[in-house]
């Protein structure tokens, strides 16, 4: 990570940490939403940005995580934050199962299949799958989370929980990007044939991208369930998948700071124009079209910094 990027992250962290001092509960709540979408977009970025797999059903993984946590909490009285890793695991397993048979599909075909997958999940939730998901009303009465004996209720408390998780995710994902794993995902995006020909098990890494992305979306889902205390299928519609997809593309696919900026722009910015409520989406659609012509690489298309000259040994070392 470069010094400038680190300084940028610290500045954003300090700023967000201080917001409860001068913003009212509404705006703090907006920031919570930005954080949740940033988490979703970071997880989708592994699949769409890093591995280059067109996936537009991310809401399904989010839903599996949220519902897993909610069911564990309301049926088995498991504390909601304890359910977080289980929600992540459930979403990861689900991701592996649904991605396995379709992973060989390319581009648009994968896109359409993932949309279909997302819709099937939503319909399954509406139909009260196994009598567990509560149909279109969803699940309510999810317990408040508590952290070290401190019960979280107010938006500012959730702000710290959510953005703390964002910080952790950014830290881990930067490490991931700078590793063998992250590079393997990038080779998939660049040229699948060359990746396989260089010894990368492309099928395995495509699946791994889905598993990791789904796991993170699932964990984010459990935080969402904890914050809302009520979840219902409409929170996991096709539209949610589109929003997360758009955040990644507008921010800069493959760029961690870009994706976070994207979450601010797509989720935060429209709140500023609340007065124009009904025209917002119209402009949003228009902005997407214009953006693809003017700046298709996104606002902040930073490549991960993997090596500085100093990290690579000098000339003359024998192979």
């Amino acid at each position, binding site marked *: 990570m470069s010094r400038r990027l680190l300084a940028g992250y610290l500045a954003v962290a300090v700023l967000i940490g201080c917001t409860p001092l001068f913003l009212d509960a509404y705006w703090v709540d907006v920031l919570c939403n930005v954080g949740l979408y940033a988490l979703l977009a970071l997880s989708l970025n592994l699949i769409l940005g890093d591995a280059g797999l067109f996936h537009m059903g991310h809401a399904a993984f989010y839903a599996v995580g949220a519902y897993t946590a909610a069911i564990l909490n309301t049926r088995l009285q498991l504390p909601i934050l304890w359910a977080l890793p289980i929600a992540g695991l459930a979403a990861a397993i689900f991701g592996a199962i649904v991605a396995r048979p379709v992973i060989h599909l390319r581009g648009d075909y994968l896109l359409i299949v993932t949309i279909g997958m997302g819709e099937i999940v939503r319909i399954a939730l509406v139909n009260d799958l196994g009598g567990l998901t509560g149909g279109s009303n969803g699940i309510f009465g999810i317990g408040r989370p508590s952290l070290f004996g401190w019960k979280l209720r107010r938006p500012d408390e959730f702000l710290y929980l959510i953005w703390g998780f964002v910080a952790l995710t950014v830290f*881990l994902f930067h*490490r*991931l990007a*700078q*590793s*063998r*794993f*992250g*590079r*393997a995902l*990038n*080779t998939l995006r*660049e*040229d699948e*044939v*060359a*990746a*396989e*020909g*260089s*010894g*990368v*098990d*492309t*099928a395995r890494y495509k699946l*791994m991208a889905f598993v*990791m992305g789904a796991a993170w979306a699932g964990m984010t889902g459990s935080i969402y369930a904890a914050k809302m205390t009520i979840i219902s299928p409409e929170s996991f519609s096709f539209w949610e998948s589109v929003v997360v997809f758009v955040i990644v593309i507008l921010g800069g696919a493959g760029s961690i700071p870009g994706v976070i900026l994207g979450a601010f722009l797509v989720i935060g910015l429209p709140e500023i124009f609340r007065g124009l409520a009904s025209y917002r989406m119209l402009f949003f659609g228009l902005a997407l079209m214009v953006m693809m012509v003017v700046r298709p690489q996104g606002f902040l298309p930073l*490549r991960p910094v*993997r*090596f500085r*000259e100093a*990290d*690579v*040994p*000098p*000339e*003359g*070392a*024998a*192979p």
Partner: protein
Amino acid sequence: MSALLEIREATKVFGGLTAVNKVSFDVKQGQIVGLIGPNGAGKTTVFNLITGNYRADGGTITFDGRSLAGLRTHRIVQLGIARTFQNIRLFQQLSAVENVLAGRHCRTGAGALAAMLRLPGQRREEREAAERAAAELSFVGLRGQAMELARNLSYGNQRKLEIARALATDPRLVILDEPAGGMNENETEELIGLIRRIQARGITVLLIEHDMSLVMKACENIVVLEYGARIAMGPPEAVKQDRRVIEAYLGTDEELA
């Protein structure tokens, strides 16, 4: 001594066209072997059969006594066969050193969890991989461009980078598909030196090339294909004299007359 790579009656049919028809040849350990023939003779198809990009419709391919049938490409790379592509396939948006590191992938093992936790083993592995990548870049003469994006390299350098990536996989056999394609005379001369240095590392080389001066200078053994079939095989001097090879390249006397 049995050969490192044994190809026996390899056959590939596309639709009704037999692109490769019962081709057999050996590549012995440590040799530089050339695969030549007119355009459309099926040379690249043979390469794709070896590397598992295509499934053969008949025949066997054995590497170091082991059949390659049904193996996926990355497994074949792991067994020790690395390749370059006729129409350069680099990871364009990645830097030169990252391209070479991709070749180290199959010789390293740290997973996502190890990377996120930066376990000691993972850090050591990353350091060693970077050292090796740097060494391979030096070997092909690209150490100075390590941080350049692959797409910003010149054509000749892109070909060299592909070779460095292939060498990073610890191959016992590298197969080069038209390595001199698009190179000028000086670059080709340099390339011959590079191929000989690869051989000096104990790595066997099989190459497709249209530049006959390179083939004649560098190769110890030559296999000639025409219309998907092998028409000649042997050392350069013998192949040069072969009547069918001359006909294949120049046409028959009747056609000329």
